[in-house]
């Protein structure tokens, strides 16, 4: 009997110690804290965290995930929310969360300083999410490969249909990536639904791979795995800054854009701090941090200096993107299943 008991006791002790060491870990914390889910690049997230901590003394617990992951997590946690603020990431999941009432309506005193597109999105979401930056859609191409294959300069969406580019264009799958869904919605808005799908079918012949992640084509273009890649322009700019032989193109027909957004989680445990962060994140000082962290999106505060590397929104023909319509889950489901049936399953 003896060894059995010592064994059982030892196991129990170990188990209890494990539980104890973890459960007490979060016990003693200062009053002012803020739990933030951050969906942009790690550097930017860290810069925001430390700057806010320095400014207010509020301790920020930041976790970085992709926007879709945060949406799934916020939804799963809705009974007992863990996070206070969800900062950054493409607007669609923010809009979806707003539609489902997972986030809190809030009117910041800084609203007057914001660009029109940010205000418009805020209104469309019933004040539940606000734009903090935007990035235009476009494509980039590898200049070395273009030269060796005699492809010439690419300027427009139509250029991507060139027969020389057969199997040379890469774009994400709209079912998995918000970037690619923005492309789908953009093309439909520029050309009309019927013509738009004709275009996508023609493009399908040139697409070598529908990647899972929206930014993946940028890397593939930089490495020379594909000649052209359709992504948000700032993803391509990051590659250019990294000295890759990539040319960034804002298509001549006009293009759509994403709005990186911010939402307060409904039932946040630190609601006051979340609002404090919300107001602060909309100031020009806070938005400057993006460029310093090598993220070249266009900030939403009118007074924020636009980073010189950022693709100038004035040079880009932006369409009047209807976030309310194309962000709604019904329209999204319809377009995605249409794309699945009519485009993705086409033979090459």
């Amino acid at each position, binding site marked *: 009997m003896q060894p059995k008991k010592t064994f059982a006791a030892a196991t129990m002790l170990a188990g209890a110690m494990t539980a104890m060491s*973890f*459960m007490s*870990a979060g016990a003693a914390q200062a009053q002012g804290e803020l739990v933030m889910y951050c969906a942009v690049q790690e550097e930017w997230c*860290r810069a925001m965290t430390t700057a806010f901590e320095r400014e207010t003394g509020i301790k920020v617990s930041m976790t970085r995930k992709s926007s*879709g992951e945060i949406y*799934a997590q916020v939804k799963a946690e809705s009974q007992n929310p863990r996070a206070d603020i969800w900062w950054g990431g493409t607007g669609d999941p923010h809009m979806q969360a707003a539609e489902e009432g997972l986030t809190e309506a809030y009117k910041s005193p800084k609203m007057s300083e914001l660009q029109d597109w940010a205000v418009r999105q805020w209104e469309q979401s019933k004040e539940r999410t606000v734009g903090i930056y935007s990035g235009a859609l476009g494509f980039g191409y590898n200049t070395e490969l273009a030269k060796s294959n005699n492809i010439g300069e690419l300027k427009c969406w139509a250029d991507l249909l060139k027969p020389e580019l057969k199997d040379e264009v890469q774009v994400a799958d709209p079912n998995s990536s918000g970037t690619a869904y923005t492309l789908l919605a953009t093309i439909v808005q520029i050309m009309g639904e019927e013509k738009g799908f004709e275009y996508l079918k023609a493009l399908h012949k040139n697409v070598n791979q529908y990647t899972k992640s929206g930014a993946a084509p940028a890397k593939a273009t930089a490495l020379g*795995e594909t000649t052209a890649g359709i992504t948000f322009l700032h993803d391509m700019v990051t590659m250019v800054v990294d000295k890759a032989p990539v040319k960034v193109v804002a298509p001549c027909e006009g293009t759509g854009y994403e709005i990186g957004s911010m939402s307060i989680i409904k039932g946040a445990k630190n609601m006051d701090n979340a609002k404090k962060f919300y107001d602060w994140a909309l100031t020009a000082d806070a938005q400057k941090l993006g460029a310093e962290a090598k993220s070249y999106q266009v900030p939403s505060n009118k007074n924020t200096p636009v980073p010189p590397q950022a693709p100038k929104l004035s040079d880009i023909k932006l369409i009047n993107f209807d976030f309310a319509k194309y962000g709604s889950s019904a329209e999204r489901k319809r377009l995605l299943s249409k794309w699945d049936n009519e485009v993705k399953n086409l033979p*090459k």
Partner: protein
Amino acid sequence: MTRATLGWIVLSWVGFVLLPWYGFDRSASPTIADYFVSGSALVQGLRGAWWLLPILMPLGMALVPVVRPSPRQKGTWLIASGLLGLALIVLQGFTIGLNGWTADILRDLFGEPGPSQSGIGYGATLTSASFLIILCHGLAARGWCRGDAFITSSIGAVVALIIVFVFFPVSTILASAFADNSGNFAPSEFAAKFMDRSIWGLDCLTSDLRCGVAWNTLFLGLLVAFGTTALGLAFALIATRTEFRYKKLLRVMSVLPIITPPFVIGLALILLFGRSGALSNVLWEWFGVPRSRWIYGLPGVFIAQLLAFTPIAFLVLIGVVQGISPTLEEASQTLRAKSWTTFWTVTLPLMRPGLANAFLLGFVESLADFGNPLVLGGNYEVLSTKIFFAVVGAQQDQGRAAVLAIILLAFTLGAFWMQHAWLGKKVYTTVTGKGDAGIPLPLPRRVALASYFTAIPWAVFTLAVYAIIVVGAFVRSMGRDYTPTLDHFLTAFRVERADWGLYFSGSAWDSFFATVKVAALSAPLTAAIGLLTAYLLTRQRFSGQRSFEFGTLLSFAIPGTVVGVSYILAFNVPPIEITGTGFILVMCFVFRNMPVGVRSGIATLSQIDKSLDEASLTLGARSATTMRRVVLPLLRPAIVASLVYSFVRAMTAVSAVIFLVTAEYNMATTYIVGRVEAGEFGLAIAYSTALILVMLLAIVAIQLVVGERRLGRRSASAAPSPVTVQAVP
């Protein structure tokens, strides 16, 4: 009444009367008084939490056999007490939640919002555990499992843990397969989602269209399972049955892939075979082979998974090959069988449990793999990535994810069933108490050649992949700019000397420490639970054994994403509120990785003759002593396998933990994924090399601590030493 039973009865009272029943709020700072008495269920119950008081009844019932000892009724009282206690705790836990009643019907009956309570704490945990053990002791007293309370308690504990950490969370998410987006019951939606053409379509047979994702997954899984089993066998045969000079090196190299963080193998393959990859460049410039993208799709995923999962097959098979008694082979030779006939009719059939387990693991691993299809999948879609993006992608359709998860589960179930059918009721015992004086036969020539021809090129290939990885960590940008640099390591692992000591200023340190801590804690727990389960499954007979075995396999079969989301759904609200703690990460790893411990334990145990245990029992040892002195030493390969595997897995898992990490417990892999997403391959690879180093050290340490199994086998060179297996201390 044994002292153990009495002890558990006392503990159940301690949990109820002394310890805090509820967990503490994370922002609260509890005092000593909160820990003792004042937060206990008794005090809470008298102060208004009336629903806790009925638990006193089963607590009292457990005391009856103590006060009036009557051997006949003892078991009945204990069983009744345990059952009632557990039932009451579960009932109140699930009906009274954080915001009042949890069921609509209760709200209608008793009014809104009703009483509220938070998640369970130490007291509730201890009392529940005690009730469970009291129940098991009661069952033993009634004669279950030959009255061995240790066995019934072990079965009870493992079953309870599996129910809490596998069935409960998984059922919460699988239920969503039958619900529409707003959560209402809608079986028709399930049918529509299930029959979708993108899942079951067979267009690729008739035209150049794509086949359904289910067929893709199945095909890939079978290919990988065959491949890994064959390669694993080749390695195992070379390592145990030949005089190959670089055996040790081969062994190390075959284990390298298992300790490689996800994405890294995929990235390395792209850098080698991609269109601008190093090898493609050479082929193009020297031989004019046009560059292509063949790596993206089935070939790439297949190669990456072969690289990643062969070690698992190897680890399972090496124990089995070592365990095969040479006596049987010698007998075959004495009967004039040629060495090939011996191999084919004696050696190979004896390896069946190992082969079947290796195959099953390879298949299931391939099904659950997420990182490689993500990086290399191209247009070849598999279920695991599809499920991930159904949850987090633009569709945001949890129901669809659940439907796909059910299909994945069905495949695993099928493989599990087939494995059983193939193994049948044959006996594979080869490690017996009898003196085993045989010398392992050298391999038949053609088998040896085949092994060399598969294993050596593969080892060279592995070496090339790792060379790329190491180079990638030390150059500025792999594939574009080969300037040597240490920048990646400095960013991740910078250490500064401050006035008060060392300051770890690198951006990777937090996640690094958290990962090592979680991995180190979960590995021994995983091994212990896994091997205990294996022991119960092979050495004991009890009803429901088969479903018990399947339950242990369940969490392994379910894709990580689904497990991650289900853990949040299940453990974010009372009664068990543990999200955001490191504890949930440990539990997640323990129950996801336990199947490997179970499988390798079963494979090894089914070789060990039961008469060894029986001899020990006959000589008067208890079952626990037998386990410690006889079974465990013989299980050393399985212990090493499950310790190594669970440690490594805890350091390299991605999809499950992505939802469970917090600022405080960030994991290395989520950091790496972030780097890969940002295109900083160099940093990702540098961090990965550091992790590989840590894991290598851990593996060496585990090998040293656990030690090798010494069987009574002679080797050709060593002097004959007819020591039986039992002589191992």
